[in-house]
């Protein structure tokens, strides 16, 4: 590079202000002494002015950012774009996989479901054992079952099986964590109300024991909270009730009459009794199996003879050796291999299941036929319900009392905390008639399902609920004799009334069961 050109280059940098202080001073000295450099400097300055002023800024691009970010998003890597399609792609692949599997193995889903069902069923059916031992049922429980349709499944957990009928007569059962608040000693009260002697008590006990043996295979339970209920259970209950009532009627006719309307008779209803007997013979293998997560019905072949043998042996052992044993388990052999299961199990939606916090109710729609029928039992059911409500009124325990001279002092244990003390006592015979009048009035008003306390004992009106304690008084037998006579007269009186009513009222309303049968 020659010297002049180098100086020109420095001039260019000079007008740009890019020379160091030393270079600048040296160049300025040179410019002063050189006309050529001066001219060149002017020339360069002019040129720089031209280029600087030539520029006019561009107009802004309004959609620059919008375009840019759209472009950036569209240029994201493929895996980034594909990410939002992942669920759709997943479903698509799954569908294709399913199609392929179903194409070559069409029954697979059904098989899986059936297998799962059988696994579930198998799990829940393990170690089913008779309720009688599992829940340690006694005669009181069986009595409550017959009369109040309540059977405890687990007393510790307060779990109860309740049977019932809805308004249309359809049967249902409930498993509840709360009992019906039945009170204690119902069976004992019933026995007391019937005024049974020791022998008769033993008889009624043995009836319940017999049914207990039958009942033990009707309800099975296990630790998996499974409950298997035989389809016959509803009829079994009726059979127990029929047997209990006919026994009560036979042995304590009068006491039974007091509790039941005179039109109700079990002994005069041979069809009912024979049906109840047949029912005991009827064996059904069909069980409704209720598990914590499913309900199905299945035939369980329990090998009943073996079970019964095993159970009776255990029972003997219990009685002989250790009375303290509360429960023990019995294994029941049954065939639940899934092939067999598959053919016989009924998963159809025949059940309506209602569950809330403390109960599980199962309504049975087209349940496999309960082929036994107890004649006239349905018409009796409302009256039996009344009996269940009322028999307590006829059952009085003899209170402890102290007798000194002319005063009596009673100590009430149980129902009452009160102590009565009175000096004088007497009988109000008239009250007997007035009470009878109430009953007759109720007949007249067509309201014949309504029962009053038919207190034919000596009534002390001023002490409601107290009058029957006279039955325990020392001259009780004399009073009873008198009462029997009175009762007999009343019975005759009732017969007359009945005849009289038949003549003047619509006969349909007063048909007795007996009359219906004859027709």
């Amino acid at each position: 590079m020659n010297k002049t050109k180098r100086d020109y280059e420095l001039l260019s940098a000079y007008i740009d202000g890019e020379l160091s202080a030393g270079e600048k001073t040296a160049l300025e000295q040179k410019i002063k002494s050189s006309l050529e450099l001066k001219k060149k400097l002017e020339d360069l300055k002019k040129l720089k002015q031209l280029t600087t002023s030539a520029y006019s800024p561009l107009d802004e691009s309004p959609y620059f950012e919008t375009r840019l970010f759209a472009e950036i998003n569209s240029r994201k890597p493929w895996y980034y774009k594909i990410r939002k399609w992942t669920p759709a792609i997943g479903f698509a692949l799954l569908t294709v996989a399913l199609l392929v599997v179903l194409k070559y193995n069409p029954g697979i889903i059904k098989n899986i479901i059936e297998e799962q069902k059988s696994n579930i069923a198998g799990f829940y059916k393990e170690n089913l054992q008779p309720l009688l031992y599992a829940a340690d049922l006694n005669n009181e429980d069986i009595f409550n079952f017959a009369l109040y349709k309540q059977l405890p499944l687990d007393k510790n957990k307060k779990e109860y099986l309740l049977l019932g009928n809805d308004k249309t007569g359809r049967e249902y059962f409930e498993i509840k964590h709360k009992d019906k608040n039945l009170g204690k000693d119902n069976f004992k009260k019933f026995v007391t109300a019937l005024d049974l002697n020791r022998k008769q008590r033993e008889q009624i006990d043995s009836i319940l024991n017999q049914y207990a043996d039958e009942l033990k295979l009707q309800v099975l339970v296990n630790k998996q909270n499974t409950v298997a209920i035989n389809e016959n259970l509803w009829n079994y209950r009726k059979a127990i009730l029929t047997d209990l009532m006919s026994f009560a009627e036979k042995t304590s006719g009068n006491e039974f009459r007091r509790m039941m309307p005179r039109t109700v008779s079990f002994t005069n209803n041979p069809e009912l009794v024979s049906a109840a007997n047949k029912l005991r013979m009827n064996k059904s293998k069909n069980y409704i199996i209720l598990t914590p997560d499913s309900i199905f019905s299945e035939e369980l072949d329990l090998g009943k003879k073996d079970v019964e043998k095993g159970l009776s042996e255990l029972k003997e052992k219990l009685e002989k050796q250790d009375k303290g044993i509360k429960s023990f388990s019995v294994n029941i052999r049954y065939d639940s291999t899934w092939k067999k299961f598959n053919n016989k199990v009924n998963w159809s939606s025949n059940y309506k299941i209602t569950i809330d916090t403390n109960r599980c109710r199962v309504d049975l729609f087209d349940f496999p036929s309960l082929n036994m029928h107890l004649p006239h039992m349905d018409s009796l059911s409302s009256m039996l319900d009344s009996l269940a409500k009322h028999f307590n009124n006829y059952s009085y325990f003899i209170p402890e009392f102290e007798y000194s001279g002319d005063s009596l002092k009673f100590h009430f244990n149980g129902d009452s905390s009160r102590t009565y003390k009175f000096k004088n006592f007497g009988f109000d015979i008239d009250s007997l008639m007035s009470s009878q009048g109430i009953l007759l009035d109720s007949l007249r008003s067509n309201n014949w399902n309504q029962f009053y306390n038919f207190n034919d004992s000596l009534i002390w009106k001023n002490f409601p609920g107290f009058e029957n304690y006279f039955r325990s008084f020392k001259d009780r037998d004399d009073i009873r004799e008198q009462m029997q006579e009175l009762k007999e007269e009343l019975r005759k009186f009732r017969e007359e009334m009945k005849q009289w009513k038949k003549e003047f009222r619509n006969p349909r309303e007063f048909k007795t069961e007996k009359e219906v049968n004859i027709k």
Partner: protein
Amino acid sequence: MNSKNKEKDLQQPQILKLDDDFSLIKRFIDEDGSAFRILVQRHKEKVRNIIFMTLNSSDMIDDIAQEVFITVYKNLKNFRFESQFTTWLYRITVNKCKDYLRKKNVRKIFVPIKDAEENFQYENPVESNDISKIVMNAISKLPYKLKVPLVLKDIEGFSYQEIAETMEIEIGTVKSRIFRAREGLREILKPLEPELR
């Protein structure tokens, strides 16, 4: 307000301005999507102007500017904070322009003669009486390596140091190229001197 506070208020914006691009880049690295949008808003006009001055054509400005910012977006996470963001940004801009011109020159070979003539006629400076346009057209006739330093210096107001970093050349080379550019410009404009007066 006392004098100390006043001082603080005056100093603070300057400090912020210095670190602003860096802090935005840090926010972008921390997955803050709005930071990149601010960077674009701040620098897009400068980038567009450099492109315009370098190519002397408004057709492709936005397309190339988009390419520039897409390149920035892709590589911003690897920014090393060793030089200013703008230096890096303008380097990318200049390189994009260079790429475009290279491709354009290759394409020119295949353009029909007729079209090429039309283009030439359109760019003929004599037809324009506007001094600015005459000068801009003259600049556009300079070779790329002379034109860019001149534009960055005279129009964008870069220092020689910044031009050297942007174009990845020595400062001496910048000095020489700018002088040569001016010499070339003078030669181009010589016949048009009467119009420039």
